[in-house]
Protein backbone atom coordinates (compact mmCIF):
# COMPACT_ATOMS: atom_id res chain seq x y z
CA UNK A 1 0.00 0.00 0.00
CA UNK A 2 1.20 3.47 -0.85
CA UNK A 3 2.86 5.24 2.04
CA UNK A 4 1.63 8.81 2.29
CA UNK A 5 3.31 10.13 5.41
CA UNK A 6 6.45 9.10 7.22
CA UNK A 7 7.38 10.99 10.36
CA UNK A 8 10.72 10.04 11.83
CA UNK A 9 12.28 11.02 15.15
CA UNK A 10 10.18 14.13 15.59
CA UNK A 11 11.23 16.29 18.55
CA UNK A 12 9.52 19.50 19.59
CA UNK A 13 11.02 21.80 22.19
CA UNK A 14 10.80 25.35 23.44
CA UNK A 15 12.85 27.86 21.48
CA UNK A 16 13.80 29.53 24.75
CA UNK A 17 14.94 26.24 26.26
CA UNK A 18 15.74 23.66 23.58
CA UNK A 19 16.53 21.03 26.21
CA UNK A 20 12.89 20.99 27.32
CA UNK A 21 11.11 18.58 25.03
CA UNK A 22 7.36 18.75 24.60
CA UNK A 23 7.41 15.93 22.07
CA UNK A 24 10.25 13.46 21.90
CA UNK A 25 11.21 10.92 19.28
CA UNK A 26 7.81 10.44 17.65
CA UNK A 27 7.69 8.30 14.53
CA UNK A 28 4.61 7.32 12.57
CA UNK A 29 3.68 6.07 9.12
CA UNK A 30 0.39 6.53 7.28
CA UNK A 31 -0.81 4.65 4.20
CA UNK A 32 -3.47 5.53 1.65
CA UNK A 33 -6.99 4.57 2.73
CA UNK A 34 -5.98 3.96 6.34
CA UNK A 35 -6.80 5.82 9.55
CA UNK A 36 -4.36 6.21 12.41
CA UNK A 37 -5.63 7.58 15.70
CA UNK A 38 -3.36 9.39 18.12
CA UNK A 39 -4.79 9.11 21.63
CA UNK A 40 -3.56 10.70 24.81
CA UNK A 41 -4.50 13.08 27.58
CA UNK A 42 -4.17 16.87 27.44
CA UNK A 43 -0.51 17.78 27.23
CA UNK A 44 0.53 14.44 25.77
CA UNK A 45 1.75 16.16 22.59
CA UNK A 46 -0.83 14.76 20.19
CA UNK A 47 -1.97 18.12 18.83
CA UNK A 48 1.59 19.50 18.66
CA UNK A 49 2.55 16.49 16.53
CA UNK A 50 -0.30 17.23 14.11
CA UNK A 51 0.50 20.95 13.98
CA UNK A 52 4.12 20.16 13.10
CA UNK A 53 3.06 17.94 10.21
CA UNK A 54 0.92 20.81 8.90
CA UNK A 55 3.76 23.30 9.40
CA UNK A 56 1.65 25.33 11.81
CA UNK A 57 3.83 25.05 14.91
CA UNK A 58 3.98 28.19 17.05
CA UNK A 59 7.05 30.32 16.52
CA UNK A 60 8.01 29.83 20.13
CA UNK A 61 8.58 26.16 19.47
CA UNK A 62 11.14 24.37 17.34
CA UNK A 63 10.97 20.94 15.81
CA UNK A 64 13.61 18.55 14.55
CA UNK A 65 13.22 15.32 12.68
CA UNK A 66 11.80 14.29 9.33
CA UNK A 67 8.25 14.75 8.04
CA UNK A 68 8.16 13.03 4.66
CA UNK A 69 4.89 13.58 2.80
CA UNK A 70 4.59 11.75 -0.54
CA UNK A 71 8.39 11.69 -0.61
CA UNK A 72 8.89 15.41 0.11
CA UNK A 73 10.45 16.45 3.41
CA UNK A 74 8.03 19.12 4.60
CA UNK A 75 10.44 20.50 7.19
CA UNK A 76 12.66 21.76 4.34
CA UNK A 77 9.92 23.75 2.61
CA UNK A 78 9.63 27.52 3.00
CA UNK A 79 6.36 29.19 3.96
CA UNK A 80 5.17 29.70 0.40
CA UNK A 81 5.88 26.12 -0.62
CA UNK A 82 4.21 24.84 2.54
CA UNK A 83 1.13 26.92 1.79
CA UNK A 84 0.79 25.20 -1.58
CA UNK A 85 0.72 21.84 0.19
CA UNK A 86 -1.53 22.82 3.09
CA UNK A 87 -5.20 22.83 2.15
CA UNK A 88 -4.42 21.24 -1.21
CA UNK A 89 -2.63 17.99 -0.55
CA UNK A 90 -3.15 18.00 3.21
CA UNK A 91 -6.66 18.74 4.47
CA UNK A 92 -7.35 19.82 8.03
CA UNK A 93 -10.35 19.75 10.35
CA UNK A 94 -10.31 21.26 13.81
CA UNK A 95 -12.37 20.76 16.93
CA UNK A 96 -14.51 23.86 17.06
CA UNK A 97 -16.71 24.31 14.01
CA UNK A 98 -17.96 27.56 15.54
CA UNK A 99 -14.58 29.28 15.63
CA UNK A 100 -12.96 27.82 12.53
CA UNK A 101 -15.47 29.35 10.13
CA UNK A 102 -15.54 33.04 9.24
CA UNK A 103 -18.92 34.39 10.42
CA UNK A 104 -19.19 37.14 7.75
CA UNK A 105 -18.65 34.94 4.70
CA UNK A 106 -21.12 32.48 3.19
CA UNK A 107 -20.26 28.83 3.54
CA UNK A 108 -20.20 28.49 -0.25
CA UNK A 109 -17.53 31.19 -0.45
CA UNK A 110 -15.48 29.55 2.28
CA UNK A 111 -15.64 26.11 0.68
CA UNK A 112 -14.68 27.68 -2.66
CA UNK A 113 -11.68 29.65 -1.34
CA UNK A 114 -9.30 26.68 -1.44
CA UNK A 115 -10.53 25.71 -4.92
CA UNK A 116 -9.71 29.17 -6.25
CA UNK A 117 -6.41 29.44 -4.41
CA UNK A 118 -5.05 26.02 -5.25
CA UNK A 119 -6.82 24.96 -8.45
CA UNK A 120 -7.72 28.34 -9.96
CA UNK A 121 -11.41 27.48 -10.28
CA UNK A 122 -13.75 30.40 -11.04
CA UNK A 123 -17.27 31.22 -12.13
CA UNK A 124 -19.70 28.43 -12.92
CA UNK A 125 -17.06 25.72 -12.63
CA UNK A 126 -16.38 26.88 -9.07
CA UNK A 127 -20.09 27.12 -8.26
CA UNK A 128 -20.77 23.61 -9.48
CA UNK A 129 -17.80 22.15 -7.64
CA UNK A 130 -18.83 23.86 -4.39
CA UNK A 131 -22.37 22.54 -4.75
CA UNK A 132 -21.20 18.99 -5.39
CA UNK A 133 -18.83 19.20 -2.40
CA UNK A 134 -21.63 20.40 -0.13
CA UNK A 135 -23.85 17.62 -1.46
CA UNK A 136 -21.15 15.04 -0.73
CA UNK A 137 -21.16 16.06 2.95
CA UNK A 138 -24.95 16.06 3.08
CA UNK A 139 -25.69 19.79 2.84
CA UNK A 140 -28.30 20.80 0.23
CA UNK A 141 -26.88 22.92 -2.59
CA UNK A 142 -29.32 25.69 -1.71
CA UNK A 143 -27.46 26.31 1.55
CA UNK A 144 -24.32 27.57 -0.22
CA UNK A 145 -25.44 31.15 0.42
CA UNK A 146 -26.04 30.58 4.12
CA UNK A 147 -23.82 32.09 6.81
CA UNK A 148 -22.28 29.90 9.53
CA UNK A 149 -24.68 31.18 12.22
CA UNK A 150 -27.62 29.84 10.20
CA UNK A 151 -26.30 26.30 10.54
CA UNK A 152 -26.27 23.85 13.43
CA UNK A 153 -23.02 22.64 14.98
CA UNK A 154 -23.14 19.40 13.03
CA UNK A 155 -23.82 21.20 9.74
CA UNK A 156 -20.90 23.55 10.39
CA UNK A 157 -18.62 20.60 10.97
CA UNK A 158 -19.90 19.15 7.68
CA UNK A 159 -18.92 22.42 6.00
CA UNK A 160 -15.46 22.09 7.58
CA UNK A 161 -15.22 18.58 6.16
CA UNK A 162 -16.24 19.87 2.71
CA UNK A 163 -13.52 22.56 2.93
CA UNK A 164 -10.90 20.06 4.00
CA UNK A 165 -11.54 17.66 1.13
CA UNK A 166 -12.17 20.34 -1.52
CA UNK A 167 -8.85 19.80 -3.29
CA UNK A 168 -8.91 16.02 -2.86
CA UNK A 169 -6.00 15.80 -0.43
CA UNK A 170 -4.12 12.56 0.01
CA UNK A 171 -3.82 13.22 3.76
CA UNK A 172 -6.57 14.43 6.08
CA UNK A 173 -5.63 15.57 9.58
CA UNK A 174 -8.57 15.76 11.98
CA UNK A 175 -7.92 17.15 15.46
CA UNK A 176 -10.78 16.15 17.79
CA UNK A 177 -13.35 16.91 15.05
CA UNK A 178 -16.32 15.49 16.96
CA UNK A 179 -15.49 16.42 20.55
CA UNK A 180 -17.78 19.45 20.60
CA UNK A 181 -20.72 17.63 18.99
CA UNK A 182 -23.73 15.79 20.33
CA UNK A 183 -23.44 12.03 20.29
CA UNK A 184 -25.90 11.43 17.43
CA UNK A 185 -24.24 14.15 15.33
CA UNK A 186 -20.84 12.71 16.21
CA UNK A 187 -21.91 9.33 14.85
CA UNK A 188 -23.00 10.98 11.59
CA UNK A 189 -19.74 12.90 11.16
CA UNK A 190 -17.65 9.80 11.89
CA UNK A 191 -19.63 7.82 9.30
CA UNK A 192 -19.17 10.64 6.79
CA UNK A 193 -15.40 10.79 7.37
CA UNK A 194 -15.09 7.02 7.02
CA UNK A 195 -17.05 7.01 3.75
CA UNK A 196 -15.08 9.90 2.25
CA UNK A 197 -11.77 8.37 3.29
CA UNK A 198 -12.67 5.07 1.59
CA UNK A 199 -14.02 6.76 -1.52
CA UNK A 200 -11.03 9.08 -1.96
CA UNK A 201 -8.45 6.66 -0.54
CA UNK A 202 -7.11 9.34 1.77
CA UNK A 203 -4.78 8.64 4.65
CA UNK A 204 -6.34 10.02 7.82
CA UNK A 205 -4.57 11.12 10.99
CA UNK A 206 -7.27 11.39 13.63
CA UNK A 207 -6.56 12.91 17.02
CA UNK A 208 -8.88 12.11 19.88
CA UNK A 209 -9.02 11.36 23.58
CA UNK A 210 -12.17 9.25 23.23
CA UNK A 211 -11.58 5.51 23.04
CA UNK A 212 -15.11 4.96 21.79
CA UNK A 213 -14.31 7.08 18.75
CA UNK A 214 -11.03 5.18 18.30
CA UNK A 215 -12.95 1.90 18.20
CA UNK A 216 -15.24 3.28 15.51
CA UNK A 217 -12.72 4.88 13.19
CA UNK A 218 -9.13 3.65 13.60
CA UNK A 219 -7.12 1.07 11.74
CA UNK A 220 -4.01 1.79 13.78
CA UNK A 221 -3.56 3.45 17.16
CA UNK A 222 -0.71 5.47 18.63
CA UNK A 223 -0.80 6.14 22.37
CA UNK A 224 1.10 9.21 23.58
CA UNK A 225 2.02 10.03 27.15
CA UNK A 226 4.00 13.11 28.21
CA UNK A 227 5.32 13.76 24.72
CA UNK A 228 6.34 10.23 23.86
CA UNK A 229 4.78 7.35 21.98
CA UNK A 230 4.36 4.60 24.55
CA UNK A 231 2.52 2.13 22.35
CA UNK A 232 1.57 1.80 18.70
CA UNK A 233 -0.02 -0.92 16.64
CA UNK A 234 -3.18 -2.18 14.98
CA UNK A 235 -6.39 -1.12 16.78
CA UNK A 236 -7.36 -4.60 17.88
CA UNK A 237 -3.96 -5.28 19.39
CA UNK A 238 -3.69 -1.96 21.27
CA UNK A 239 -7.25 -1.96 22.60
CA UNK A 240 -7.60 -5.64 23.42
CA UNK A 241 -4.06 -6.65 24.31
CA UNK A 242 -2.34 -3.47 25.48
CA UNK A 243 1.30 -4.05 26.38
CA UNK A 244 2.32 -0.80 28.00
CA UNK A 245 1.27 -0.07 31.61
CA UNK A 246 0.09 3.41 30.65
CA UNK A 247 -2.17 2.09 27.87
CA UNK A 248 -3.61 -0.44 30.28
CA UNK A 249 -4.17 2.24 32.93
CA UNK A 250 -5.76 4.63 30.42
CA UNK A 251 -8.14 1.96 29.15
CA UNK A 252 -9.18 1.18 32.74
CA UNK A 253 -10.46 4.77 33.05
CA UNK A 254 -12.82 4.61 30.11
CA UNK A 255 -16.48 4.30 31.06
CA UNK A 256 -18.43 1.77 29.03
CA UNK A 257 -22.08 1.84 28.10
CA UNK A 258 -22.51 -1.70 29.38
CA UNK A 259 -21.47 -0.49 32.84
CA UNK A 260 -19.78 -3.80 33.56
CA UNK A 261 -16.33 -2.65 34.45
CA UNK A 262 -15.09 -0.85 37.52
CA UNK A 263 -13.45 2.46 36.72
CA UNK A 264 -9.90 2.71 37.95
CA UNK A 265 -8.10 6.07 37.87
CA UNK A 266 -4.49 6.17 36.72
CA UNK A 267 -1.92 5.86 39.49
CA UNK A 268 0.72 8.19 38.08
CA UNK A 269 3.11 7.64 40.99
CA UNK A 270 3.04 3.93 40.27
CA UNK A 271 3.62 4.56 36.57
CA UNK A 272 6.61 6.73 37.38
CA UNK A 273 8.14 4.05 39.56
CA UNK A 274 8.09 1.73 36.58
CA UNK A 275 10.02 2.42 33.43
CA UNK A 276 7.45 4.77 31.96
CA UNK A 277 8.45 8.39 32.33
Amino acid at each position, binding site marked *: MAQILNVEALNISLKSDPTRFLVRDVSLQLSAGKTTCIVGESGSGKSLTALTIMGLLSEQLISTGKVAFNGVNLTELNNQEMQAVRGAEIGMIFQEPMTSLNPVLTIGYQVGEALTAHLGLKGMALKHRVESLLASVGIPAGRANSYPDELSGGQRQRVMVAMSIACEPSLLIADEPTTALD*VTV*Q*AQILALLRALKDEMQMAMLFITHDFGVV*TDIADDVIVMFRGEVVEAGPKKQVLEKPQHPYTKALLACV*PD*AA*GKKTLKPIDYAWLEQGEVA
Partner: protein
Amino acid sequence: MQDNRQDASIILEARNLVKEYTQRSGSFGFGQSKVKALDGVSVSLKKGSTLAVVGESGSGKSTLARCLLQLQAFESGEVLFNGQSLSTLDSKQLRQMRKNLQMVFQDPFASLNPRMRVGEIVGEGLLVHGLGNQQARQEKVQQMLERVGLQAGDVKKYPHQFSGGQRQRIGIARALVLEPEVVVCDEPVSALDVSVQAQILLLLKELQQEMQLSYLFITHDLRVVRHIADDIVVMNKGQVVERGTVDAVYQSPQEAYTQALLKAIPGQG
Protein backbone atom coordinates in the same frame (compact mmCIF):
# COMPACT_ATOMS: atom_id res chain seq x y z
CA MET B 1 -50.59 12.76 38.07
CA GLN B 2 -49.59 10.73 41.05
CA ASP B 3 -49.13 12.78 44.18
CA ASN B 4 -45.78 12.23 45.81
CA ARG B 5 -46.24 14.73 48.60
CA GLN B 6 -46.40 11.95 51.12
CA ASP B 7 -43.49 10.07 49.67
CA ALA B 8 -40.60 10.68 52.07
CA SER B 9 -38.07 9.02 49.78
CA ILE B 10 -38.35 11.87 47.24
CA ILE B 11 -36.03 14.70 48.23
CA LEU B 12 -36.31 16.97 45.20
CA GLU B 13 -39.12 17.10 42.74
CA ALA B 14 -40.16 19.17 39.76
CA ARG B 15 -43.82 19.18 38.74
CA ASN B 16 -44.90 20.26 35.29
CA LEU B 17 -42.22 22.90 34.87
CA VAL B 18 -42.74 25.22 31.93
CA LYS B 19 -40.07 27.68 30.91
CA GLU B 20 -40.45 29.82 27.81
CA TYR B 21 -37.93 31.98 26.04
CA THR B 22 -38.92 34.77 23.71
CA GLN B 23 -37.17 34.68 20.40
CA ARG B 24 -37.00 37.33 17.72
CA SER B 25 -38.48 36.16 14.47
CA GLY B 26 -40.04 37.37 11.25
CA SER B 27 -38.60 40.02 8.97
CA PHE B 28 -35.77 41.98 10.59
CA GLY B 29 -36.56 40.28 13.89
CA PHE B 30 -39.52 42.56 14.63
CA GLY B 31 -41.76 39.62 15.39
CA GLN B 32 -41.59 37.54 18.50
CA SER B 33 -42.10 33.86 18.99
CA LYS B 34 -42.00 31.71 22.07
CA VAL B 35 -39.70 28.74 22.45
CA LYS B 36 -40.52 26.26 25.17
CA ALA B 37 -37.24 25.27 26.82
CA LEU B 38 -39.18 23.21 29.34
CA ASP B 39 -42.57 21.94 28.26
CA GLY B 40 -44.22 20.40 31.29
CA VAL B 41 -41.23 18.62 32.82
CA SER B 42 -41.64 16.48 35.93
CA VAL B 43 -38.74 14.69 37.59
CA SER B 44 -38.20 13.29 41.05
CA LEU B 45 -34.94 12.58 42.80
CA LYS B 46 -34.87 9.85 45.43
CA LYS B 47 -32.97 10.47 48.64
CA GLY B 48 -29.40 9.16 48.48
CA SER B 49 -29.61 8.25 44.81
CA THR B 50 -28.37 9.69 41.55
CA LEU B 51 -30.74 10.77 38.83
CA ALA B 52 -29.16 11.38 35.43
CA VAL B 53 -30.78 13.89 33.12
CA VAL B 54 -29.56 13.26 29.59
CA GLY B 55 -30.24 14.90 26.29
CA GLU B 56 -28.53 16.69 23.43
CA SER B 57 -27.77 20.41 23.20
CA GLY B 58 -30.98 22.37 23.37
CA SER B 59 -32.95 19.60 25.06
CA GLY B 60 -33.53 21.80 28.11
CA LYS B 61 -31.48 19.81 30.59
CA SER B 62 -29.43 22.76 31.86
CA THR B 63 -32.51 24.97 32.00
CA LEU B 64 -34.11 22.31 34.19
CA ALA B 65 -31.12 22.44 36.56
CA ARG B 66 -31.30 26.21 36.86
CA CYS B 67 -35.07 26.16 37.46
CA LEU B 68 -34.72 23.44 40.10
CA LEU B 69 -32.22 25.58 41.99
CA GLN B 70 -34.43 28.68 41.61
CA LEU B 71 -31.64 30.37 39.70
CA GLN B 72 -34.07 31.05 36.91
CA ALA B 73 -37.75 31.97 36.99
CA PHE B 74 -40.21 29.73 35.19
CA GLU B 75 -43.73 30.28 33.84
CA SER B 76 -45.55 27.54 35.68
CA GLY B 77 -45.09 24.39 37.67
CA GLU B 78 -43.47 23.93 41.03
CA VAL B 79 -40.32 22.65 42.67
CA LEU B 80 -40.59 20.75 45.92
CA PHE B 81 -37.71 20.15 48.29
CA ASN B 82 -38.44 17.60 51.02
CA GLY B 83 -42.11 18.00 50.10
CA GLN B 84 -42.12 21.77 50.49
CA SER B 85 -42.81 23.99 47.51
CA LEU B 86 -39.95 26.44 47.02
CA SER B 87 -42.25 29.05 45.47
CA THR B 88 -43.98 29.52 48.82
CA LEU B 89 -40.74 30.58 50.49
CA ASP B 90 -39.74 34.22 50.94
CA SER B 91 -36.27 35.30 49.93
CA LYS B 92 -34.81 34.78 53.39
CA GLN B 93 -36.19 31.27 53.68
CA LEU B 94 -35.03 30.54 50.15
CA ARG B 95 -31.51 31.65 51.03
CA GLN B 96 -31.48 29.25 53.96
CA MET B 97 -32.79 26.52 51.73
CA ARG B 98 -29.97 27.04 49.23
CA LYS B 99 -27.52 25.67 51.75
CA ASN B 100 -29.11 22.30 51.10
CA LEU B 101 -29.17 22.66 47.32
CA GLN B 102 -25.71 23.08 45.87
CA MET B 103 -24.31 22.96 42.37
CA VAL B 104 -21.15 21.76 40.64
CA PHE B 105 -20.57 23.37 37.27
CA GLN B 106 -19.18 22.08 34.00
CA ASP B 107 -16.29 24.37 33.31
CA PRO B 108 -13.80 24.44 36.16
CA PHE B 109 -12.01 27.30 34.39
CA ALA B 110 -15.01 29.61 34.21
CA SER B 111 -16.77 28.79 37.47
CA LEU B 112 -14.04 29.81 39.92
CA ASN B 113 -13.31 33.50 40.50
CA PRO B 114 -9.69 33.95 39.38
CA ARG B 115 -9.09 36.77 41.88
CA MET B 116 -10.12 34.81 44.95
CA ARG B 117 -7.94 32.41 46.86
CA VAL B 118 -9.11 28.83 47.09
CA GLY B 119 -9.75 29.24 50.81
CA GLU B 120 -12.07 32.18 50.11
CA ILE B 121 -13.84 30.36 47.26
CA VAL B 122 -14.56 27.27 49.32
CA GLY B 123 -15.27 29.22 52.52
CA GLU B 124 -17.57 31.85 51.00
CA GLY B 125 -20.69 29.75 51.47
CA LEU B 126 -19.93 29.25 55.16
CA LEU B 127 -19.43 32.98 55.55
CA VAL B 128 -22.63 33.87 53.70
CA HIS B 129 -24.66 31.46 55.79
CA GLY B 130 -22.93 32.65 58.96
CA LEU B 131 -21.76 29.21 59.96
CA GLY B 132 -19.11 28.96 62.70
CA ASN B 133 -16.46 31.47 63.71
CA GLN B 134 -13.45 32.25 61.58
CA GLN B 135 -11.32 29.48 63.01
CA ALA B 136 -14.05 26.86 62.66
CA ARG B 137 -14.62 27.95 59.07
CA GLN B 138 -10.93 27.69 58.26
CA GLU B 139 -10.72 24.22 59.72
CA LYS B 140 -13.82 23.14 57.85
CA VAL B 141 -12.44 24.45 54.56
CA GLN B 142 -9.13 22.68 55.08
CA GLN B 143 -10.84 19.43 55.97
CA MET B 144 -13.02 19.65 52.90
CA LEU B 145 -10.05 20.36 50.62
CA GLU B 146 -8.21 17.36 52.01
CA ARG B 147 -11.30 15.23 51.59
CA VAL B 148 -11.54 16.04 47.87
CA GLY B 149 -7.86 15.22 47.38
CA LEU B 150 -6.23 18.62 47.69
CA GLN B 151 -3.98 19.88 50.46
CA ALA B 152 -4.85 22.09 53.41
CA GLY B 153 -2.07 24.43 52.28
CA ASP B 154 -3.85 25.00 48.98
CA VAL B 155 -6.17 27.55 50.64
CA LYS B 156 -3.64 30.30 49.87
CA LYS B 157 -3.39 29.50 46.17
CA TYR B 158 -5.37 30.93 43.26
CA PRO B 159 -7.42 28.85 40.75
CA HIS B 160 -4.90 29.31 37.92
CA GLN B 161 -2.32 27.38 39.92
CA PHE B 162 -4.37 24.20 39.51
CA SER B 163 -5.07 21.78 36.67
CA GLY B 164 -8.58 21.25 35.30
CA GLY B 165 -9.19 18.18 37.44
CA GLN B 166 -7.95 19.93 40.59
CA ARG B 167 -10.20 22.89 39.85
CA GLN B 168 -13.15 20.57 39.58
CA ARG B 169 -12.17 19.22 43.02
CA ILE B 170 -12.25 22.82 44.30
CA GLY B 171 -15.73 23.22 42.78
CA ILE B 172 -16.85 20.05 44.56
CA ALA B 173 -15.36 21.22 47.87
CA ARG B 174 -17.20 24.53 47.49
CA ALA B 175 -20.50 22.72 46.95
CA LEU B 176 -20.04 20.19 49.75
CA VAL B 177 -18.58 22.38 52.48
CA LEU B 178 -22.14 23.41 53.37
CA GLU B 179 -23.12 19.76 53.81
CA PRO B 180 -26.02 20.00 51.37
CA GLU B 181 -28.60 17.28 50.86
CA VAL B 182 -28.83 17.68 47.10
CA VAL B 183 -26.08 18.47 44.63
CA VAL B 184 -26.93 19.36 41.06
CA CYS B 185 -23.97 18.45 38.86
CA ASP B 186 -24.13 20.08 35.43
CA GLU B 187 -21.79 18.14 33.13
CA PRO B 188 -19.11 18.00 35.85
CA VAL B 189 -16.74 15.72 33.95
CA SER B 190 -17.36 16.73 30.32
CA ALA B 191 -14.39 19.07 30.13
CA LEU B 192 -11.97 16.60 31.69
CA ASP B 193 -9.56 14.02 30.33
CA VAL B 194 -10.79 10.45 30.65
CA SER B 195 -8.27 9.65 33.40
CA VAL B 196 -9.30 12.71 35.42
CA GLN B 197 -12.95 11.96 34.67
CA ALA B 198 -12.59 8.55 36.32
CA GLN B 199 -11.04 10.15 39.43
CA ILE B 200 -13.83 12.70 39.75
CA LEU B 201 -16.59 10.12 39.20
CA LEU B 202 -15.16 7.90 41.91
CA LEU B 203 -14.75 10.86 44.26
CA LEU B 204 -18.38 11.86 43.72
CA LYS B 205 -19.51 8.30 44.46
CA GLU B 206 -17.44 8.10 47.67
CA LEU B 207 -18.73 11.45 48.88
CA GLN B 208 -22.29 10.43 48.11
CA GLN B 209 -21.96 7.45 50.44
CA GLU B 210 -20.18 9.34 53.19
CA MET B 211 -22.48 12.34 53.23
CA GLN B 212 -25.73 10.66 52.08
CA LEU B 213 -25.94 13.01 49.13
CA SER B 214 -28.55 12.96 46.39
CA TYR B 215 -27.25 13.89 42.95
CA LEU B 216 -29.06 15.30 39.97
CA PHE B 217 -26.47 14.59 37.32
CA ILE B 218 -26.80 16.38 34.00
CA THR B 219 -24.80 14.95 31.13
CA HIS B 220 -24.81 14.16 27.46
CA ASP B 221 -22.46 11.21 27.93
CA LEU B 222 -24.43 7.99 28.21
CA ARG B 223 -21.32 6.03 29.14
CA VAL B 224 -20.82 8.19 32.22
CA VAL B 225 -24.49 7.74 33.18
CA ARG B 226 -24.06 4.01 33.40
CA HIS B 227 -21.28 4.43 35.95
CA ILE B 228 -22.84 7.04 38.20
CA ALA B 229 -26.62 6.99 38.04
CA ASP B 230 -29.42 4.86 39.47
CA ASP B 231 -32.24 6.44 37.51
CA ILE B 232 -32.39 8.27 34.22
CA VAL B 233 -34.56 10.85 32.54
CA VAL B 234 -34.14 11.36 28.79
CA MET B 235 -35.04 14.82 27.51
CA ASN B 236 -35.70 15.96 23.98
CA LYS B 237 -36.92 19.41 22.92
CA GLY B 238 -37.99 20.44 26.39
CA GLN B 239 -39.88 17.28 27.21
CA VAL B 240 -39.12 14.10 29.11
CA VAL B 241 -39.40 11.32 26.53
CA GLU B 242 -38.37 8.39 28.70
CA ARG B 243 -37.63 7.65 32.34
CA GLY B 244 -36.76 4.66 34.48
CA THR B 245 -33.91 2.91 36.18
CA VAL B 246 -30.65 3.06 34.25
CA ASP B 247 -30.55 -0.71 33.86
CA ALA B 248 -34.09 -0.91 32.50
CA VAL B 249 -33.72 1.97 30.06
CA TYR B 250 -30.35 0.75 28.73
CA GLN B 251 -31.55 -2.82 28.36
CA SER B 252 -34.81 -2.05 26.64
CA PRO B 253 -35.26 1.57 25.62
CA GLN B 254 -38.87 2.16 24.64
CA GLU B 255 -38.70 5.43 22.74
CA ALA B 256 -37.13 5.78 19.30
CA TYR B 257 -35.20 8.83 20.52
CA THR B 258 -33.63 6.94 23.42
CA GLN B 259 -32.79 4.06 21.10
CA ALA B 260 -31.06 6.46 18.69
CA LEU B 261 -29.07 8.03 21.55
CA LEU B 262 -27.91 4.67 22.84
CA LYS B 263 -27.05 3.47 19.37
CA ALA B 264 -24.92 6.56 18.75
CA ILE B 265 -22.60 5.88 21.69
CA PRO B 266 -19.22 5.45 20.02
CA GLY B 267 -17.18 2.29 20.42
CA GLN B 268 -19.88 -0.34 20.22
CA GLY B 269 -18.30 -1.89 17.14
